[in-house]
């Protein structure tokens, strides 16, 4: 197998893992972001702090927490294995969980800020015009907040793509099954395959640059495709 071929498999796996993780973070991040922006309950800032932990904790610590939770003898993992026969450790689904936990704060922070930036008076305007609360969310709040949320999602995608520590602990490094791009880089360097490592590193960097450019563009308020027609 040449360098390009051995780069393709981990890249495809990384994209799959990052895609699923981003999808999970879309649902969790938007839901929790809305809760933190609008909810009035004791412990709100504590919840925010706990959900932000993955951003500052060492990924290995996070990986350890995940093993305690979803490992074969973990609280949730033992139950899943016993009742449903599901094993998450050493599977690509386990890598998805690791990546989505690590990247969640990025979506959550962006979504909370975006929702807090929506003028409450506009939502009130929707209410007096006959909209239900769900319709207010989809027709007023979300259209005004999506830009910030999308920027957060792109960052979370880039973060998931590069996730290493927690993924390695939860999913291991099984070539073709759980060996993602960043793990493959590590393995290639360890094995002295510099050619493979070079290709992998280049691909990772390029993908992340594209994602960051897109995110920056969204945050600066420019349209994605040229200027809007007037």
């Amino acid at each position, binding site marked *: 197998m040449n360098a390009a071929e051995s780069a393709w498999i981990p890249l495809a796996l990384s994209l799959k893992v990052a895609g699923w993780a981003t999808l999970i973070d879309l649902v969790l991040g938007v839901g929790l972001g809305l809760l933190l922006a609008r909810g009035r309950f004791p412990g709100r800032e504590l919840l925010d702090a706990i959900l932000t932990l993955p951003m500052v904790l060492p990924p290995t610590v996070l990986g350890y927490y995940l093993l305690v939770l979803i490992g074969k003898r973990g609280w949730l993992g033992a139950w899943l294995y016993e009742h449903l026969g599901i094993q998450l450790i050493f599977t690509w689904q386990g890598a998805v969980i690791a990546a989505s936990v690590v990247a969640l704060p990025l979506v959550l922070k962006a979504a909370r800020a975006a929702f807090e930036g929506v003028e409450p008076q506009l939502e*009130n*305007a929707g*209410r*007096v015009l006959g*909209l239900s609360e*769900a319709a207010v969310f989809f027709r007023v709040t979300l*259209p*005004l907040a999506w830009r910030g949320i999308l920027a957060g999602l792109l960052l979370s995608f880039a973060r998931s793509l590069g996730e290493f520590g927690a993924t390695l602990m939860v999913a291991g490094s099984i070539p073709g099954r759980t060996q993602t791009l960043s793990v493959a880089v590590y393995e290639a360097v360890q094995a002295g395959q510099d050619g493979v490592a070079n290709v992998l590193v280049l691909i990772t960097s390029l993908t992340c640059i594209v994602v960051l450019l897109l995110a920056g563009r969204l945050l600066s308020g420019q349209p994605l495709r040229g200027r809007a027609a007037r």
Partner: protein
Amino acid sequence: MSFEVDIRKTVESPQRRFELQVRFTAQARRTVIYGPSGAGKTLTLQALAGLLRPDAGRIAFNGETLFDSGACVVVPARRRRFGYLFQDYALFPQLNVRQNVAFGLQRGWLNPRHDAGGEAVERWLAALELGPVASQLPHQLSGGQRQRTALARALVAAPRALLLDEPFSALDPGLRERTRDELDRLLAQIDIPLVMITHDPDDLRRFGEQVLHLRDGVVGD
């Protein structure tokens, strides 16, 4: 038209604690609630519209109970069918004039299309001279056009009454008197009952068939 209002509401923020305790019956077609800023005018209007839930009391419109803390009745804002003109107009910034006007007529979870139409929309766009700017976004409009867009948006669904929050305060002083004339004429034409809150004595002279003075959260005469 008649509004029967007897409500209490305490609003607390780190900066201040404000007690609203208003009790009045508004029977004129045009009622103006007049008072300095910080007197609780907007809170009162929001309570009428259903945007603010009082701590206790009762609100009725033409005999229909909209809020009654004793009987646990709270009619939500969307079912009260009042038009509401916000002080800063609260136009949806990402929607053009036509979409803003059509907003309240569209059901479901999707906003009106760019070219949303219909008899009522066209009629109000024409009545308020918004035809030429129908495809423009709110930030591209003049102050007067913004106000007329907000007015069209409020009136298009044929509300039972119109609630106006300082309708002329966001306009240039030179434009206010002319806009007052226009609004006066328009409202006389469609014959809709209204409640206006203002701190401007000129509004009072023009629209105050019945005047309620609000000071420090309490209505006097």
